[in-house]
């Protein structure tokens, strides 16, 4: 199929070579950027080599169901990296491994892939720039939820170096080469060839796996009358021939291993035996899958085909909606999916807050938003330019006014005095007076403050142009850390329960001061919260 297209378009070969070239770019990029790393002097490492080695490790770990996870790959890379810089720490080696791995996945981009722009002359003879998207390592989720790594076809192609060649013929070629090499006794080259053969096997398994997955998912996705049986047949034939060839090679190298006298030859032959044995194991796995495919088909056919005729005309969601939409340009696809979403998600009920539910809403621990809306970015906060409503000078003036150690004063008098200096100070004094209506004696005690300002309402109305409420009596009370010590403020209790300046707080200042200070420390806050929670329920 692809071969026909190649002949139809003379530029196809060029485009293919450009793409092949692009696949190597991330590896060159590693070496280009290593000098810019700030956590280590990484120039000593050969990053492209480590990159290739990483892809090797992932490819070797690839199986039908799972690949390697990040930790396994990192661990296997360590000896290789350590060999490049033995005097560096293991921590740094690990960090280099992670860095290379992350860069091959391209962590940090949304799509976790690479994009290269290349030019090609299209059918009309115009030069167009096109984007080639590719990935080297992809992350996939296993059934148990673990994320593992897989090498893509592009990566395997880059690694093997046989760019855009036919899988099957390259496989045969690799084996012929191996046999040749063994008979000539060149085992180092033989090992390379055997490894290439193994990558080819893995790649072939991947193609078949994709086909089988499609079959499993939907019977109608595959032509079971001709196409798939042919595919299974050819796959089985392929496995049979490879099996025979590899068993023969295995026998030969095993003999070579046993007969070799040079220990180096012996070791290399032993490695080769391992590799070929692994190839055979992979073929066996593939064959098992192929045999199970028929049973899957029959079970799915039973489930899907033997049902009654259509009862009424309905839309075929997959064929008439999903597939055409997928084929649309992004700009055009927006309208249909929005129409579907609007109509297909039902209704929402606008929420009306009620006080009890609002309170419980506010007291609820923060929901784990990441589960629902995705990662919440940490906002970059800039400090507000001016957070203080009152200047230091105004605070100082208010402090001076409210320093009332002995005789209580009326708020009205204080306000008048304050306003003569600065109207803002009057507002500050009024706010602090209201705050003092329910003073935090416990807090003052904890923070070892010398005194606390107390406000008492004796029923007198405040006559003030700006501020309304009760004309509070204000006095500074000395806080005595001794539990037995009486707070001077308690002498002025006897206020009404609902003072106009009351802000909902209970009169902790007067009532609470009679209790022992130890009781204050935390119980106050807990009691309040508990009460509100009860109200909310």
């Amino acid at each position: 199929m692809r071969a026909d297209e190649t002949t139809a378009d003379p530029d196809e070969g060029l485009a293919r070579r450009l793409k092949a070239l692009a696949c190597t770019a991330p590896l060159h990029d590693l070496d280009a950027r290593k000098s810019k790393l700030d956590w280590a002097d990484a120039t000593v490492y050969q990053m492209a080599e480590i990159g290739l080695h990483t892809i090797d490790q992932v490819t070797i770990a690839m199986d039908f169901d799972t690949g390697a996870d990040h930790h396994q790959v990192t661990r296997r890379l360590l000896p290789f990296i350590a060999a490049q810089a033995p005097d560096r720490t293991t921590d740094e080696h690990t960090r280099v491994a992670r860095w290379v791995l992350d860069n091959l996945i391209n962590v940090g981009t949304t799509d976790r892939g690479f994009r290269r722009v290349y030019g090609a002359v299209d059918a009309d003879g115009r030069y167009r720039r096109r984007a080639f998207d590719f990935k080297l390592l992809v992350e996939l989720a296993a059934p148990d939820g673990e994320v593992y790594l897989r090498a893509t076809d592009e990566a395997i192609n880059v690694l093997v170096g046989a760019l855009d060649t036919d899988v099957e013929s390259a496989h045969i070629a690799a084996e012929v080469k191996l046999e040749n090499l063994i008979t000539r006794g060149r085992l180092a080259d033989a090992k390379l060839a055997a490894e290439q053969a193994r990558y080819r096997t893995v790649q072939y398994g991947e193609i078949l796996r994709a086909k089988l997955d499609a079959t499993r998912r939907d019977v109608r996705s595959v032509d079971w009358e001709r196409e798939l049986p042919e595919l299974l047949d050819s796959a089985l034939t392929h496995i049979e021939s490879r099996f025979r060839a590899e068993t023969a090679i295995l026998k030969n190298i095993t003999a070579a291993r046993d007969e070799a006298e040079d220990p180096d030859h012996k070791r290399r032959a032993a490695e080769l035996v391992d590799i070929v044995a692994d190839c055979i194991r992979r073929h066996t796995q593939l064959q098992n899958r192929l045999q199970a495919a028929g049973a899957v088909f029959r079970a799915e056919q039973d489930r899907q085909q033997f049902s009654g005729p259509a009862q009424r005309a309905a839309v075929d969601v997959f064929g008439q909606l999903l597939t055409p939409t997928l084929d649309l340009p992004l700009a055009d696809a927006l309208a249909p999916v929005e129409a579907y979403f609007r109509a297909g998600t039902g209704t929402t009920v606008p929420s009306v807050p009620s006080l009890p539910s609002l309170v419980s809403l506010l007291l609820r621990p923060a929901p784990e938003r990441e589960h629902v809306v995705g990662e919440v970015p940490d906002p970059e906060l800039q400090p507000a330019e001016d957070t203080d409503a009152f200047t230091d000078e105004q605070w100082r003036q208010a402090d001076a006014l409210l320093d009332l150690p002995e005789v209580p004063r009326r708020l009205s008098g204080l306000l008048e005095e304050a306003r003569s200096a600065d109207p803002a100070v009057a507002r500050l004094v009024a706010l602090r007076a209201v705050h003092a209506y329910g003073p935090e004696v416990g807090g003052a005690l904890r923070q070892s403050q010398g005194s606390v300002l107390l406000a008492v309402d004796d029923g007198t109305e405040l006559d003030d142009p700006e501020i309304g409420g009760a004309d509070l009596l204000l006095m500074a009370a000395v806080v005595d850390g001794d539990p037995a010590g009486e707070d001077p403020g308690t002498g002025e209790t006897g206020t009404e329960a609902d003072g106009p300046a009351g802000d909902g707080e209970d009169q902790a200042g007067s009532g609470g001061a009679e209790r022992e200070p130890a009781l204050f420390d935390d119980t106050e806050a807990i009691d309040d919260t508990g009460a509100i929670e009860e109200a909310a329920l």
Partner: protein
Amino acid sequence: MSTGHASADAEAAARLLAFGMRPKLVPGRDVVYADLVRRYGEDSAFKQLTHSVAAGLGLLVLEVNAQAGAVLAATDESIFEIKMDSYARQSKIRERRDTEKVLHGLIHLATAALGYPRPDDLANDTYIGRVSVEQVDGVVREACRILDERAAANTDPLADAPELEQAWRAYARRPAAAATKDGRLAPDTTRGMVTRALRFLAEQGFLVPVSSEQGGTYRTTPRYQVQVRELAADAAFDELLALGVVSVPGEGSTLRASATDTL
């Protein structure tokens, strides 16, 4: 008809709609609800009244039956409408935002496609489908693969016109999963998005969680079937028809043939 009688009817009609706005409630579990559903089926004046009340609120009554309850849809600009803008992740760049929206929409379409794989399943009131996170992602990726195979020799997207890129490329390029520092599913991966869609549909009473296998397995509810069949599928179909990318099939057999061709 006396005024007192009419206002009691209006209250009952409004109550039926109120039941319909609680998507997880089914008539089988609530006697009052079941009574109202029965009355809707038997009393055509009441049925008319319910429709009128719904229309006034900006709602459309899709169906009222004992299995699904009252299935409602929001009309355009209704306060009950769920906007895609509030569902999809906010992104500052407009193109990116559109891409996100398309991906979310495709996932919702794929969920319905997997829940009701054949037109029969959508039409058959007793059919209950099963969907899982893994399958939904798999279905879309498989469709992407088929489109990729079908694509002509060189259809790599043009570098200077990202909005002309086909939707399947955007989906295929997005990773299925990505490892995060704390081992959870990254939300901007396709599996993360599918997980969110299925949870959202479960909240809306369209799916019921069955197990946590395959990233979360759910079964469809009659309510979902009604919603997809009576409204959503047609809405999307009309848009596609307007774009001229699908044709109206003449007979059931054509539908079947096109399904075999594409699926």
